[in-house]
């Protein structure tokens, strides 16, 4: 098969049994790969109401048919499972070098089931697959783990692993690959920890077949085009932190737990400041002609030390503006810590912001935390991050996440997220379509199931008013469906979502890889199928309209001064139309007719 490796690896960690099964071509045709393929496997095989942290949950590592092809930015993989943070289906994706090694070892997916008795890691060298004991890795951070696992396996092995946060079941633990890239969201690292799986190390030497490589070389022309476009120049130069300036300029940079949309110290934590202070050089993920990665190091005169990648924009928001930390050294250090202990910078930040607001309200005391935690106090944030990762003292309950804390301490409205997952760094009061997107995302407040920056803020393909409901349900649906397809292909969403003609390009690349013609409508349809399948998965667990909610801060509290002053998110109005266009009932349930039409049932 062009694109696919044609093999799925099943690893039962309870029994130690390892099985290789052929890829079903129908499954590949209908659900492609990545998030699509893995969601379908989960939908068909998982006991839906299982405990996400029980041995019966399945943890699926998956790449896509475009991974390690010349298609633009083709170095991604994702992890799909039932989330311990949201209780829904989820997919969390990452770049770096591990995804390419994973695919060229010869597998489209690895399905982990059960739970190992002791801590183990999986070593894959092409056809040789073995489960190895990892008790000596217990408690190690992600950098140490990569080093030790490489020493035991192969110096060129690529490693994805959890840190202490995953071992200690912090509900927003990440799986970190290549020491600095993270499949961070939804607690996929927590599930890995619950299975006593410390790491997956891979060395792959096989090839990926494609139908039309010349067509794929167009990627560089497109990359050039991205770099030459206004946003593109800034993107290559500043990486994702350039969004700090874009968001601040539009009054949508979430600040002080989403009370505000403008961060006064934005120019201290943006891409330009990083170039001045911490950037070593730009880097790319495997197979990507763009280079938005930031290789950074804290300078000798900084109050903290360390090296690593980033922070990316989302972290500038979550551990910067949203907790009022206007200090690049501290922000960078917190980013490094999260990567080292293996947890999501975004939900770590959401949790800190929730605690800070509860502390301000007097609902959580200094005695409870062990120290004060006011806005911007990065020293104590760092103390708390370590406590969370180790599951010690107040860190134990802080590791349960912002929603848990807000509920427990009597102010559920201060948790800024949806379905238990913290929002990304785009303030919905100033771009209401993003609010609809968060509310209807199958995995809660996530930025990777679609993003509305281009249509709402940059006016691509055509200008629209970010503050009103007009046109938003239509736009959100197409963004969600297109993103689902892109993620199923195993490529990075970024360039495709930046480009006006992104959907056309992904359809052409997909056709060039598999050797059959797919139109834009064809790939949208596949995306719609994936999105509806995820929705139906959640629906069977009782998720309906009542769960497609946003906090009152977004729907009732007026936006702060500046662009969009006084605005709120007209969620219910948008939801009515969104469900109707989706072919779902007024309660947000996919109709039988829709599910049949898409071939889901």
């Amino acid at each position, binding site marked *: 098969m062009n694109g696919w490796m044609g093999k799925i690896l099943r690893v039962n960690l309870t029994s130690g049994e390892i099985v290789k099964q052929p890829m079903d071509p129908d499954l590949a045709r209908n659900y492609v790969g990545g998030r699509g393929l893995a969601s379908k496997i989960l939908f068909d095989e998982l006991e839906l109401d299982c405990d996400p942290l029980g041995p019966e949950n399945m943890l699926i590592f998956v790449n896509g048919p475009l991974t390690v092809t*010349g298609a633009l930015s083709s170095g991604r993989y994702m992890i799909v499972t039932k989330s311990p943070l949201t209780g829904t289906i989820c997919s969390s994706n990452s770049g770096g070098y591990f995804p*390419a090694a994973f695919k060229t070892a010869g597998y489209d997916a690895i399905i982990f089931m059960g739970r190992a008795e002791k801590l183990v890691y999986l070593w894959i060298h092409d056809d040789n697959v073995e489960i190895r004991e990892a008790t000596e890795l217990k408690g190690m951070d992600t950098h140490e783990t990569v080093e030790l696992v490489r020493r035991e396996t192969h110096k060129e092995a690529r490693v994805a692993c959890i840190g202490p946060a995953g071992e200690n079941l912090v509900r927003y633990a990440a799986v970190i690959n290549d020491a600095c890239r993270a499949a961070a969201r939804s607690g996929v690292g927590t599930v890995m920890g619950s299975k006593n799986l410390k790491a997956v190390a891979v060395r792959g030497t096989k*090839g990926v077949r494609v*139908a039309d*490589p010349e067509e794929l070389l167009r990627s*560089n022309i497109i990359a050039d085009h991205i770099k030459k476009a206004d946003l593109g120049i800034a993107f290559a130069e500043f990486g994702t932190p350039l969004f700090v300036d874009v968001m601040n300029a539009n009054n949508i940079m979430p600040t002080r737990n989403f009370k505000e949309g403008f961060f006064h110290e934005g120019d201290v934590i943006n891409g330009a400041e990083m170039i001045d202070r911490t950037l070593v050089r730009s*880097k790319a993920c495997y197979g*990507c002609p763009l280079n938005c990665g930031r290789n950074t190091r804290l300078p000798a005169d900084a109050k903290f030390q360390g090296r690593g990648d980033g922070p990316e924009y989302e972290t500038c928001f979550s551990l910067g503006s949203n907790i009022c930390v206007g200090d690049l050294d501290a922000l960078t250090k917190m980013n490094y810590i999260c990567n080292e202990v293996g947890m999501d910078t975004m939900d770590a930040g959401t949790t800190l912001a929730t605690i800070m607001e509860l502390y301000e309200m007097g609902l959580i005391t200094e005695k409870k935390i062990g120290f004060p935690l006011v806005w911007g106090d990065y020293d104590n944030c760092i103390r708390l991050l370590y406590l969370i990762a180790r599951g010690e003292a107040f860190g134990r309950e802080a590791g349960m996440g912002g929603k848990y804390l807000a509920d427990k301490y009597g102010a559920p409205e201060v948790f800024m997220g949806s379905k238990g997952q913290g929002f990304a760094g785009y303030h919905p009061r100033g771009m209401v379509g993003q609010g609809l997107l968060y509310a209807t995302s199958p995995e809660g407040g996530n930025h990777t199931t679609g993003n509305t920056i281009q249509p709402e803020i940059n006016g691509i393909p055509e200008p629209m008013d970010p503050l009103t409901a007009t046109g938003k349900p239509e736009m959100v649906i197409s963004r969600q469906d297109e993103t689902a397809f892109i993620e199923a292909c195993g490529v990075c969403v970024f360039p495709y979502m930046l480009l006006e003609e992104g959907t056309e390009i992904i359809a052409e690349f997909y056709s060039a890889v598999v050797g059959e013609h797919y139109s834009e409508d064809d790939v949208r349809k596949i995306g719609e199928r994936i999105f509806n399948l995820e929705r139906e998965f959640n629906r069977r667990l009782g998720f309906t309209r009542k769960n497609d909610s946003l906090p009152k801060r977004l729907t009732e509290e007026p936006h702060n001064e500046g662009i969009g002053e006084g605005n709120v998110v007209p969620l219910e109005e948008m939801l009515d139309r969104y469900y109707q266009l989706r072919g779902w009932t007024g309660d947000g349930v996919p109709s039988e007719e829709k599910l049949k039409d898409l071939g889901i049932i």
Partner: protein
Amino acid sequence: MGKRIAFTEQLCTNCHLCSMYCSLAFTKDGIFEFRPSIGRIRVAENDDDTKYVAHVCLQCREPACAACCPAGAITKDPETGIVMINDEECTGCELCIAACEFGCICMVDGTAVKCEVCDDPLCVRACAVKALDLVDADDSVADQGDLYKEVPL
């Protein structure tokens, strides 16, 4: 005048597109396959992730690999200056790999392989940041060679 592939470290982003596209030039039987592990150009990173180095044959004036080959399978073409491996004569002894201090030869399916400079090299075409270039072989190779020793594969 012979040619070789020149590499500028400062521009490299460690994306490995060069290895991917190089491998495409060596797939057979009308099948197109991205198989970076057989690429004749391979990227190494140093331990603290501050240097990215694409190893590709420098087409040495006096190639150590040719001098040590017991089968006489490696020769420097007097006209083009390109160092060539005759895969029918190669016995797979790997002595050349040990002899090349730049890490520019590797084994593929039991045979030693290296960059023999394609006419319109796919690695150069694929490099989006222009870190690779097809240049005249008499350009100085000392800096590139030092880099290969500093950041080995």
